């Protein structure tokens, strides 16, 4: 991986509490898995930065090796890799996601 890509990922996950590497944008997700994670975060009222990997092939490959995780979307909270869509969905269903976000000091406001 190009060092500049790793540097960019590092700076993005360090300067934003919640970062989602995804296909498409939060408004127009281009893949069902990305869309599912956006829905969960939106439902929890979490502010997050969505980064579209489709517009940058080096980032699309770079984030996979950065996290040693083969798929996208990828969720980072406070600089830490949380998981992909299946993990986020499961953690949401069990309530672990909300717990983890609050314990890390991220604002959660569940929408009715």
């Amino acid at each position, binding site marked *: 991986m190009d060092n500049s890509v790793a540097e960019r990922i590092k700076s993005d996950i360090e300067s934003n509490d919640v970062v989602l590497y995804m296909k498409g944008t939060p408004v127009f997700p281009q893949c069902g898995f990305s869309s599912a994670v956006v829905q969960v975060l939106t439902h929890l009222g979490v502010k997050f930065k969505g980064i579209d990997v489709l517009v940058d092939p080096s980032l699309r490959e770079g984030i996979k090796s950065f996290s040693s995780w083969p798929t*996208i979307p990828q969720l980072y909270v406070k600089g830490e890799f*949380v*998981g992909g869509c*299946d993990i986020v969905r499961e953690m949401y269903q069990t309530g672990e996601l909300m717990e983890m976000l609050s314990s890390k000091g991220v604002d959660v406001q569940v929408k009715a």
Partner: protein
Amino acid sequence: MAMDAALIESLIREGIPDAEVRIEDLRGDGDHYAAYVESAAFKGKTRVQQHKMVYDALQGRMGGELHALALQTSIPKDA
């Protein structure tokens, strides 16, 4: 890009020998699967680590050849 369900199952079993594996073809198109994997080897591991073990078993196919695999891992109750 499609991949056979039996191949996914055998790769996971090869990588995690004690695993109980169930594959569902979600859309019947040979391209969108759900895998349920239960193994005592997951004990003491985080979800990320458990999923990684399954991805490792798939030997690099995940994210490439295999685009859509919804994955759920669990530990047997008596493990």
